[in-house]
């Protein structure tokens, strides 16, 4: 039983990490494309950008719903505390997602598309901003009492660190969005996004470097963990690998490769994610509440593995199948028409 109480929360930490990663990667490029649409002044081009997402955005967004439900069931204490502490960033994200989603449906029917174009771009930007603040605030630490309940103030999440994380995340979304468009489009549109990918690769890297340097300086608890062997070698390797990957990305953009930039970007996301997971683990509310303290009853975790865990390969399969069905470049008004 003791090993079970150790092992099960770790499994759920891993599963939720996977859901969050899939969300950040998949809806990340949706949001990135949305943010990029703000820079486009041509109706046809915006139409193409939205068409490139129309069949996948809701499946991509589902990973967030799944991550929310999983966190609720597996770590109820963390679900309540984190969401209460992040009341405003969550609200900002939720309203952003609302406008992003309805823009797809309403723009298609509307005669005057201006408002819904703006709703798509601004909604994507706001959603990304809310997520960035939320991530930054969780990493910075949430003020809780000994039993793990939130005791901080309404604006605790707003610090210069969370602003930095939010800006970097937005850049990261723009990067993966650009890489997706390079993959899915051709001609002038593709050419534009080779450029935006390049700019975003640089700005994302600068943000990431800054976060990497400031983390051990400002988080005492992280420092002791980061500078002790054997983890210190892992943490030293991550920035080195990161810079290597970014240089591979930049050279693939230089060579006008079509799929490679997307793959390199995903690898950069994977690396960043592993880095963050290592900093956070074994906490679910960093440095205050561990996954073991916040976990649901072991019987719940087991039943959730049976009901959700075994569906993960199936869910991955039908998401993949979708991408296979709609493979190829985006063209014309809409798929299949």
């Amino acid at each position: 039983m003791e090993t079970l109480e150790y092992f099960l929360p770790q499994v759920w930490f891993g599963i939720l990490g996977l859901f969050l990663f899939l969300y950040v990667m998949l809806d990340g490029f949706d949001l990135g494309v949305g943010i990029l649409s703000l820079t486009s002044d041509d109706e046809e081009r915006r139409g193409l950008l939205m068409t490139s997402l129309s069949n996948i955005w809701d499946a991509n967004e589902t990973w967030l719903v799944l991550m929310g439900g999983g966190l609720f069931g597996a770590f109820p204490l963390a679900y309540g505390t984190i969401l209460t502490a992040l009341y405003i960033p969550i609200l900002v994200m939720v309203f952003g997602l609302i406008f992003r989603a309805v823009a797809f449906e309403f723009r298609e029917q509307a005669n005057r598309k201006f408002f819904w174009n703006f709703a798509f771009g601004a909604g994507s930007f706001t959603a990304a901003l809310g997520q960035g603040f939320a991530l930054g605030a969780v990493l910075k630490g949430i003020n809780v009492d000994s039993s793990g309940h939130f005791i901080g103030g309404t604006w605790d999440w707003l610090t210069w660190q969370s602003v930095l994380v939010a800006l970097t995340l937005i850049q990261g979304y723009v990067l993966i969005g650009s890489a997706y468009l390079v993959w899915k489009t051709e001609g002038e549109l593709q050419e534009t996004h080779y450029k935006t990918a390049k700019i975003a690769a640089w700005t994302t890297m600068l943000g990431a470097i800054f976060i990497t340097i400031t983390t051990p300086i400002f988080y005492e608890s992280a420092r002791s963990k980061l500078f002790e062997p054997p983890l210190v070698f892992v943490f030293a390797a991550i920035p080195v690998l990161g810079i290597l990957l970014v240089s591979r990305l930049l050279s693939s953009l230089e060579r006008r490769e079509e799929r490679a930039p997307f793959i390199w970007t995903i690898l950069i996301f994977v690396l960043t994610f592993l880095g963050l997971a290592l900093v956070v683990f074994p906490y679910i509310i960093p440095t205050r509440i561990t996954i073991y303290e916040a976990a649901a009853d072991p019987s719940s975790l087991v039943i959730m593995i049976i009901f959700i865990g075994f569906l993960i390969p199936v869910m991955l399969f039908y998401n993949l199948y979708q991408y296979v069905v709609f493979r190829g470049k985006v063209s014309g008004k809409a798929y299949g028409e």
Partner: protein
Amino acid sequence: MEFLSDTVVLSRMQFALTAIIHMLWPTLTTGVGIYLVMVEGIWLKTRNPDYYHHARFWSKLYALNFGIGVATGIPMEFQFGTNWAPFSEAVGNFFGSVIGFEASWAFMLEAAFLGIMLFGWERVNPAIHYLSTILVAVGANLSTVWILTASSWMQTPTGGEMVNGKFIVHDYFQAILNPFAATSVLHMFFATLETSLFVVGGISAWYILNQRHANFFAKSFKIALAAAIVVAPLQLYMGHLSAEQVYLYQPAKLAAMEAQWETLPAGQPANWSLVSLPNEKTQKNDWEISIPNALGYILEFKKDLSAPVRGLKEWQPEDRPHLVGLIYYCFRIMVGIGFFLAAVMGFSILCWLLGKFSAEKISEQRWLMRAWMFAAPLGFIAIDTGWIVRCVGRQPWTLYNQIRTVDSASHIPASNVLTSLTGFALVYPLLLVASLYFGSRIVRRGPDFDLPVPGIEIDRPAVDTAPGEFVPDERPVEAQQ
């Protein structure tokens, strides 16, 4: 304006507002999803292109509603954490897991195959496409199953017990199959299906009435009617079973539904109140019209009650539901609509049997078509009023008899909730208006008959009659005979 500084009241208002409006869209997608399965199936069986065009036309409305349903649904999930953190922490073991099951079993299935259903006509073969349509419908309706399971468990929490303020589950299947679950799932399933069928039928009736593609829409009208024959009476029956369960498990809610202040003893006839003016201050109805002996027949199909019906006064004021008038009238509106829809359906069947729906005659049934148009939005009102009865009637508990609503709300400043509530109050009605406007545009534009039918090459008869290359006959005129 005391409530403006009360976090609990504001959080309740926010949840009620978002739930009442959000619910309207999934109602259509779950029901129309099943309708699409029927239409595409008929197309595959008959190969009549009309049914293909029906599938394309109604799936446009599906897409619109799905998009807004998702957009308004995500805030619902997050509200449990932002506004109801103590509740989430206490019931996460079961309730949170079920919310996770909904996302993984139901929502992902629907979202993943929706793209293929909407845009994949030319990219996958008809069998795979049909499978996708079926999976979308299954996914949508599995959402009903899981959400209603979670909600029913809040009404009749079984399968475990409260230990140190947390609900510990001993038996998951007992919790999933709690006493309310099966009836509630079916009651909601038929509600969404019936509402959707009356929407399809009502819109079809509008076309028929306006003589636009009347023959084409007579087909969808008849499919909706044929399905409603089964659904409408079953829904009345499920409603009866649900009321019976409330009588057994939540007598205080039943008393509020009936505005019954005094206990009616067993062995005596019980009147059923038709219209009244409940007064919570004086704890009686200021004014009332009631039908003699009817309550006995409603509950037990006989005049005299075999068990007492308890009145509201049996509970302390803090242990019984408030807003008695709201619960009382919402219940009557829901039941009234249920009977009205069944009556419209029954009368339509009669007309059908009398041959009044033939191609020439159907557009002459003006009053009946108007009745269907009038009935189209009623299902939504019945669903919302039904949920008000269900959830307001559960008060003062979030988890019935276990966790009080006042103990369930997050400890956050009221100003935060007021801000978010204002945001939702501005955005959700706007979305409702916009979706009605854009939905009616889809209807006014009508179906697109130019869409190529898969498997049939358009404008190309089976025998190739295309002109070949012109070869001038160079023989002398005499030889050309």
